[in-house]
């Protein structure tokens, strides 16, 4: 009886835990999108108001924001600071790969962030502001969508895990 109870607890706990971690991903994605959007705002000010060179602006942005968003900026800055002839476009894309490895962002979010790569640092301050404004606006929309998904998906995954675990137990009994 003891083993049976332990088994039931393990199955329900396992499925429940999986469901909760799935639900947590929804929350993390919203947080990460918000962090990146704010960090981009910071980077934009460094570029358009302080005219800080890109490598230094990215380093400052990395210290300003939380992980995993900071990884994107830190990795891009590291590559530009290495003075190996890496362009801003290449550095930004490598930074994005680093971000993908450690974040809960979806392919659509990454693709949005990728869209800025070719324009980063390649025009005057006015044009850079337009590029950053547009990206931040698009990220805001993406964030709202992620919030809507959070409302529905979070509950589904949180409860769903436990429910499936219970169903599995019932089937086994």
């Amino acid at each position, binding site marked *: 009886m003891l083993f049976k109870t332990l088994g039931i607890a393990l199955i329900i706990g396992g499925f429940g835990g999986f469901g909760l971690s799935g639900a947590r991903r929804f929350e993390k994605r919203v947080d990460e999108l918000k962090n990146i959007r704010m960090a981009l705002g910071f980077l934009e000010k460094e*570029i358009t108001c302080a005219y*800080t*060179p890109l490598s230094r602006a990215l380093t400052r942005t990395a210290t300003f924001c939380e992980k995993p968003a900071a990884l994107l900026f830190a990795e891009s800055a590291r590559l*530009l600071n290495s*003075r190996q002839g890496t362009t*801003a476009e290449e550095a930004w894309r490598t930074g994005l790969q680093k971000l993908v490895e450690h974040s809960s962002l979806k392919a659509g979010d990454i693709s949005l962030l990728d869209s800025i790569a070719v324009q980063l640092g*390649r025009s005057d301050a006015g044009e850079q502001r337009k590029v950053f404004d547009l990206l931040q606006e698009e990220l805001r929309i993406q964030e709202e969508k992620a919030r809507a998904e959070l409302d529905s998906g979070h509950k589904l995954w949180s409860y769903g895990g436990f429910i499936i675990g219970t169903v599995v137990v019932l089937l086994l009994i």
Partner: protein
Amino acid sequence: MLEPGKNLLRREVLPYFSTQIKDLLLNLEEDQCLRLEEIRLRCGQPLLLKVGERDFTLDRRGRLSEDIATGVRTSEEDIYRTISSISDNSLYAFAEEIRRGFITVAGGHRVGLAGQVVMQGEAVKTMKDFSSLCFRIAHEIKNCALSLLPYINSGSGNTIANTLIISPPRCGKTTILRDLARLLANNHKHQSGRNVVIVDERSELAGSYRGIPQLDVGPRTDVLDSCPKAQGMIMALRSLSPQVIITDEIGRREDVLALQECVNAGVAVISSVHAGTVDELQKRPIMRELLSSRAFKLAVILSRTNGPGSIQDIVRWD
């Protein structure tokens, strides 16, 4: 400070180029590096090097050749990578320099830019889609103006003659002016150094990078970098108490007026102007007016007869 030849090229110039061009330029020999004046990148055209008086290109093996058609062609990507490095991937931080058509990099080397010019009303707003770059290597030749000092210092007491350096392009007038600034700002024989102000509109004389002179202009020299000549001369007069003002390529009416203001305030002015001879200069109305005002006491005419900086003639007007 600059060091000669390949070390300078490797340390201060090559890091800015794309890998392809960098690898080719590494094949240059020491004496070629010493005489290298310009590296020109034109989109779709062979890489061009000005070594001394002649134009060369580099073939695929990195050998110098005067047959330009055999040279390695510069691609759009070469230009993109080079301009990215020069601007530290931050064109927005160089808006003013781009508007003026050049960027000065660490070491005082000047990179001329060509591409699509964007206008705003009558003024140049910016430049984009760069199609060619001209990398001019800064050469510092110490004591090249030493032979001029006795003429410039020939006035009574410790006075310095207002001097005009007359020279066609690429005859070394900037190098001479820079060395004069350094010599005058240092103690020399029985004369103590003077307070010198360089008004460096095009960042060529002092080769300033982020406001700091990269070339040796002497211990008593202040540099107004990227400052229009006329405004700079008046600013210097009011705030830096100079004994000598040095500036490059005067020619506009406002420059002449500012120059006369300085001369009448008892400050010596040494400047340069584009012309081959004094007669040629007399044909330009503004310069004729300036010469007839007797503001300048000495003219030094340069040529390339024995290489850049050769003194062809010295004319006294006092």
